[in-house]
């Protein structure tokens, strides 16, 4: 569920596209220049609102946030923890 909402959010707000094939779930946001460093803060704000979590400073790293799949896994871990 989060994955679909997140994909839609990134497609519309960063790629300005309504074509789902423009974004693969493992695409690196940085390498593919989909979301830059300042844009990640917008994604964090979106995740905090959407998933009801708080992301700590030390969690703001590419390992957690640099693709759709990484974000989904990270949020799931947070919600379970």
């Amino acid at each position: 569920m989060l994955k679909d909402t997140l994909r839609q959010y990134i497609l519309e707000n960063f790629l300005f596209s309504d074509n789902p094939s423009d974004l693969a779930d493992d695409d690196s946001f940085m390498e593919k220049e989909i979301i830059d460093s300042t844009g990640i803060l917008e994604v964090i704000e979106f995740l905090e609102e959407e998933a009801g979590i708080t992301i700590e400073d030390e969690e703001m790293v590419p390992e957690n946030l640099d693709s759709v799949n990484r974000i989904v896994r990270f949020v799931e871990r947070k919600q379970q923890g």
Partner: protein
Amino acid sequence: MCGIAGIIGEYDPNVDSGRVRAMIGQLQHRGPDHFRVCERESAVLGHARLSIIDLETGDQPVFSRDGAIAVVFNGEIYNYLELRRELLPDYPFYTESDTEVIVALYERYGIDFVEHLNGQFAICLHDRRQQRSYLIRDRVGIAPLYYCRESNRVLFASEVKALKAGGVALQMDVEGLGDYVHLWAPLSPGTLYRGISEVPPGCWVEVKQGGEMRSERYWNYAYRPENDADLEERIEELDALLQDAVRIRLRADVPVAAYLSGGLDSSIILSYLLRIGADLETFSLSFADAAFDESAFQREVAAHFSTRHNEVLARNEQIASGFTGTVWHAESPLFRTSPAPMKLLSGQVHGSGYKVVLTGEGADEVFGGYDLFKEARIREFWSRSPQSRCRPALLRRLYPYLDFNRLNSTAYLKNAFGHQLEQTGRLLYGHAIRMKTTSAVIDFLHPDLRETIRGMDIEERAVKRLGAEALALPVFNRAQYVEARTLMPGYILSSQGDRMLMANSVEGRYPFLDHRVIEFAGRLPNRYKMHGLKEKFILKKLAAGRLPRSVLDRPKQPYRAPDIDALTCAANSDLLDCLSPHAIRRHGVLDEGKIALLLKKVRSGRANSVKDNMMFTTALSTQIWMDQFITTH
């Protein structure tokens, strides 16, 4: 400043003098005091005058005694009194104007006369004897001058809108647009208009009878640091130079005021005005949003120098309602709204009875003030050890205000600033990050246009237009050079400078762009400009003791204005019609689907990033610009 326009070559007297009249009519804002169109053998010359020097006899064209030479000219020759004294024993002047000095100098030196001028100028000189004309532009590009060929004739004008009024159908130039969306300016002599060139700063164009043309550069920036220079001696030398640069820029038969930004450069100008004993009336912009406002510093400096100070509060509603007019005067799409408040400011200056203001523009380019220069230095330092975690961390010091500093990983810093990190030999190395940021707007262009522009090699074009010799410069000087040849004339001095000033018939004067100051700075060791990461080091040393400590020590604040917040305010609801699917389709320049999603994001209130603001402002201004200027088939 004034407006000039004309036709060089064989012309039809039944048609073409009327065309030049129409062209000059479009330049009324540049010269509301007097108009004249003069027909000569093989040229029609038009002039719209803003009377500043020699109010009685300074109307143009000015002729040589035998009538063979005629000059129309926009600008000021600041050393005209000294030149006149040199020429006077041999030359029978009939006016008191600086324009006649141009005629007399040309009679003595031929086209090399231009090297004797200290000023800001766009000149058309018609030489009936030699059957040729010259279009000449000042060294750094303060005064604008455009031209285009029409069979065996050449049309010229201070602004492109005058060429349009003269019957030239304007088409968008894709290469010019490609340069623009990377460098904020077309690479001169190219423009945003197909078939229309500008006379590049520091160049003249010769037009012979029959239409044969050639262009030559008479001046360029030079960086030859004298590394053993003594700092104290150089400060003394700079002090004398700047004082003289300010002194001769007070030459006017009308009162002169000054802009005050609250930063170092305009404050230094004020310190010289005070020393010279000039009348001190200052004008500043303020904003309701604290993120853009510098009024506390402006007031402090104004109080320090006891100026009669005027503040213009730029409200969002005014930025919005004036935006169409801003684009009209800028004659190009805009990445930011920041020119709009500058037009409000010049309006206040005009309303207060002034025609001339001194400003601090140019100091950042000449003395190394921009963050971009520091960024280039850090990136070069980092490139020597690309895996280092510490070296990119210096960038956090450079941009402490950027939100992404919250991100707890150097990977994000590397993502933001690592682009082309190790390609230090490129001409545009120092500009790589700005180009990457700005070129995001390409994504919003129509797919055909997007593909063409993505395929352009901007580095190659820049080397060709700016000169391969610049590749041998150190990274810092290379970045200075590119900035001085692209953004400064193409945006700072034009869209944000001359065009917004002249929109209200006000002339800007720039002491830091006196060529003697620029040449002096080119001989300084780079450490006297950028000392570690301290910008404009020698200027700060010079100003120590003259300016309030708070102004000297404050971090540099780039001039910005609200973009989306202003453009979408209630007063401006009609403006967004420019981005309707129908309007987008009409011009075929933007991507309809992406613009719809951008608008959706803007309306949701989530479009807050620098990139969103830039994209929205660019999209809106592009549509307005297309409506106003481009002939759509």
